[in-house]
């Protein structure tokens, strides 16, 4: 069973070797192109600070992701019940995705002050749209014959939503969540650029900006690496849950 992890790990190792070789051969200075070994060294040397920053980012990212999941699915459920509502509001949900964080961060800060809340909200804003879009698609593609069947037996709309549409849309919901996980991490890190507390290093975003400003790209890369691992872990968790939820019946998990 573990053999399936060999290909991606092999790719990772190959890329690292190529990167190290390129840096050594071209003799690029450390402040331009950090070598993987240097990044690793920074990671180990600064591990306490980096790990505490990671914890902070993880908390915010998970909060934003959870909000996306709950609120995104709820919005999709609401939009699925009425064509007019859908036509009126669905186009605007795209704005969630396109709004630049640089522009809204100051506004969020004015509304909510500093701390973890504006970061969580940023993570939510950036990651909610895929959940809405995918869930909505799933809800609207429910088997029409089954919808008829439910109608035939006089099922109320709530029962039809809970027992038919939502379970039927579950594969789509998981697809949305997979995409949303990574976006939540990105949203968190970028928000931290503007909002993160510097002295205690609240957030990997703060570390990245500081390290860049000080001309220490290997430290910046180390922080970026941790952020990527966070995103990967969240993605993996969604996959795991999806596997257990769908394994008995959906083709994607067979």
């Amino acid at each position, binding site marked *: 069973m573990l053999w399936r992890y060999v290909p991606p790990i092999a790719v990772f190792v190959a890329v690292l070797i190529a990167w190290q070789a390129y840096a050594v051969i071209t003799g690029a200075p450390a402040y331009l192109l950090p070598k993987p070994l240097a990044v690793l060294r920074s990671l180990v040397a600064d591990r306490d600070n980096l790990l505490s920053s990671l914890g902070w980012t993880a908390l915010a990212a998970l909060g934003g992701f959870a909000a996306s999941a709950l609120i995104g699915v709820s919005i999709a459920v609401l939009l699925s019940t009425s064509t007019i509502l859908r036509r009126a509001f669905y186009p605007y949900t795209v704005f969630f995705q396109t709004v630049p964080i640089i522009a809204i961060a100051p506004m969020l800060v004015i509304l909510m002050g500093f701390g973890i809340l504006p970061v969580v909200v940023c993570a939510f804003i950036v990651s909610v749209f895929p959940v809405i879009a995918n869930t909505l698609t799933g809800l609207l593609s429910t088997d029409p014959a089954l919808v008829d069947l439910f109608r035939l037996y006089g099922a109320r709309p709530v029962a039809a939503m809970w027992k038919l549409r939502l379970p039927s849309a579950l594969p789509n919901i998981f697809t949305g969540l997979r995409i949303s996980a990574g976006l939540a991490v990105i949203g968190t890190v970028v928000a931290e650029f*503007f909002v993160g*507390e510097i*002295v205690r290093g609240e957030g990997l975003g703060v570390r990245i900006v*500081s390290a860049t400003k000080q001309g220490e790209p290997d430290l910046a890369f180390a922080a970026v690496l941790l952020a990527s691992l966070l995103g990967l872990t969240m993605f993996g968790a969604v996959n795991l849950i999806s596997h257990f939820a769908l394994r008995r019946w959906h083709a994607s998990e067979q």
Partner: protein
Amino acid sequence: MRSITVAWAPRPRKSAIARAGRSCHKQSLAILKCLLLGVLLSACLSGCHRDEHQATTITLDWKPEPEFGGFYQAQVSGAFKNRGLDIELKSAGAGAPTWQLVASGQTEFATAAADEVLIARAKGADVVAVFAVYQTSPQGIMVHRSRGFSSIGDLFTHPGILAAEDSTWLKYLLGKYPAPIVTITGYSSGVTVFLAKHDYSQQCFVTSEPLLAAREGGDPQTFLIADAGYNPYTTVLITRGETVRNHPQKVKQVVEACREGWRKYLDDPSAANAVMAKLNTEMDAKTFELAAAAQKPLIETEETRKSGLGVMTSQRWTQLAKQLVDLKVLVMAPSAENCFVDVDKLPAN
């Protein structure tokens, strides 16, 4: 009987499909070839075009504002052109420090702060300073006047927010006030949050944000970092050591053009301000005027009246280097002579 039918049926179908597939394949190959040719052609053309238009770039480390007035003035009044220089002024955004752009060759000249030059050299980047706009650093912290602070120390010892980049001057202040009560957060440009929140303070250039805030009806009060004891040369024109060694004449010309531009700008900033106002719509004409006036004493001092605009002394570079070592930003102080170049001492070809 049945088995024979099954055996025969697939074959004729397959060749028909294969034939169709192959012609499709040929078509897509042809399209690909055309695309490739197009790309190569356009790359060639743009490359050729570039060769005829090799301007020297000066990358300024912020948006067009009075802190760069002299450079724009030099361009406007032809100071560069008269010396046979084709100069392009660019603005860097937030992101990689400008010394990295110079060191990697992406830009020939740039502006940076003196402490950045020292850090760059410590990392092995051969960048040198040739002209310092500010003798006194305009770096400051902007607070709400109504809070009644009398020094930077007050800010650090009262609750509130300070938005600042994690730069060396911040490290210096944290060294002076090691247990800050104020919360220090990341910095985004603009004064929106400052105007909205009373307990919010932010880093600033004395010629920029406080004037913007005042225009919008805020009550800014600025404390200069220089007054707190940290005063690196700021908005320093830097280039690669290699450029100075190989093209000393060019560097000399550039610096002399800048001196001329700054002289003109200090005397009458209106022409350059007009040009910059078009590029930076955040500041209005009045603010440009006020800023240009406010920065004069930071640029023109006893030293410059004696030795010319943009002059630098090795004593100040040495002092700065020592401060960085004390802050543990540098392990070893580089020698001052390597950090800056007095272009007047360069061989006249």
